């Protein structure tokens, strides 16, 4: 019983901070410079990690798909399968999860530290809303950065999938690309990017929310970062399903 109450309380707090962030969206003009800075923090600085992860993702996807379909399905479908799988599902989700680990925890630690060192109080006493000053730039930046990272992840993954199937002799690159292009639907790509945008909101908001919830004491900030990443990851998977049903269902 206790645990349900606290889950609902937490969900309520989370939703209410999303709502407050929306309200302050009207003052977005004041935070333009911060948004650019955050896109750099969240997007550009996550690039190496995202490229590395998606390279292996693409290779695994190609080899696994080939293994599963080899005896039943013509290999022209390999490129199509890998490209679709990456664009619709693997690209956005893996990018979301990886960035949640890196950025969600970073945001929670940063804001949590501000909380315990009274910097949040200082903002409030100056009449500056932390939602406008801290939440908006991060959430908006992540919302923009995640689709961009996902496009790069998609390209890297599909390319590496192609390379690996070519050089391991599964299917040469001409067959692979022909398959990928033949069955390409713009909806697959854009649906995936919309999901990525939603994941950006989820992971940044989660970092902001648990950062603000940080309690004093030695455990405080560490606990917040853990909660931020766990919650973001679960919500990303949940929304991956929900949005998948809405977009592709």
């Amino acid at each position: 019983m206790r645990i349900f109450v606290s889950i609902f309380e937490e969900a309520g707090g989370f939703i209410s901070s999303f709502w407050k962030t929306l309200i302050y969206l009207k003052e977005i003009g004041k935070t333009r410079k911060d948004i650019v800075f955050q896109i750099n923090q969240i997007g550009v600085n996550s690039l190496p990690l995202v490229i590395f992860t998606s390279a292996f993702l693409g290779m695994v996807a190609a080899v696994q798909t080939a293994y599963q379909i080899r005896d039943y399905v013509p290999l022209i479908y390999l490129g199509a399968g890998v490209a679709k799988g990456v664009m619709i599902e693997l690209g956005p989700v893996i990018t979301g999860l990886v960035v949640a680990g890196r950025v969600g925890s970073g945001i929670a630690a940063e804001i949590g530290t501000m909380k315990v060192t009274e910097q949040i109080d200082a903002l409030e006493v100056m009449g500056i809303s932390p939602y406008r000053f801290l939440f908006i730039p991060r959430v908006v930046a992540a919302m923009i950065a995640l689709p961009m990272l996902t496009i790069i992840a998609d390209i890297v993954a599909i390319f590496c999938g192609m390379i690996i199937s070519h050089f391991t002799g599964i299917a040469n690159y001409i067959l692979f690309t022909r398959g990928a292009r033949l069955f390409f639907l713009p909806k697959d790509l854009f649906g995936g990017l919309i999901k990525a945008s939603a994941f950006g909101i989820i992971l940044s908001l989660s970092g902001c929310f648990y950062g603000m919830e940080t309690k004093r004491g030695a455990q405080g900030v560490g606990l917040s970062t853990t909660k931020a990443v766990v919650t973001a990851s679960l919500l990303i998977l949940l929304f991956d399903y929900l949005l998948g049903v809405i977009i592709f269902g």
Partner: protein
Amino acid sequence: MIRVRDLEVNFDFPVLKGVSLDIEDEEFLVILGKSGSGKTVFIKTVVGLIRPNRGEVSIDDISVTNGEPKELLKARKNIGFVFQGAALFDSLTVFENIALPLREHFSLTKKEIKDKVKKSLELVELEGVEKLYPAQLSGGMKKRVAIARAIAYEPKYIFFDEPTTGLDPETALKITKLLKDLWKKIKGTFIAVTHDFGFTEEVATRIAWLKGGRFEFVGKVNEFKKLDVKEIQAYFVKTF
């Protein structure tokens, strides 16, 4: 004038048990109390950072405790607050730290902001640090920057949470002198919270002694000294 009535704040236990106090314009009020007695909680509740369980606070007849965000914002333009650990924004330079509240609430030109930042840094006797980040400053310098940030927009009431704690005796003395001069110069209402009796004797026009969740004594410094209470004598023994 700041009016505090029957203020009650409970965390896991009662911290403030119904305190009332009037803070007069242009006085230098020092709130004394042991560590953990609720001094920080008291001033944070007065400025609306902590919601009281009961009671009322009004600043120049604007209610802080009734929960109207617009009202609170109006009251806060008259409030400066220097936090115990300075609470400078780590990601901003000294200049940006001081300029932030100026940019937020007043329509000033770039030059006016620059001048105001420069002036408030002069008042705290710090120069040439505008481009540094908080991490590059010493503890005493941070306190000064925090004071500069709080006075830059010329609020009527300035709160100081333990301005001399955590500094070496020499720096503490400098800050004490600085606050005394500053108070005379800008004719504001200063409210400081401390357990440093040397500081109190030097600056206070009035003392409020917080003990057991209530104000045990409110009055002049010499009256406070005359009180025949062991704890107060302990204060003297420690500090003189």
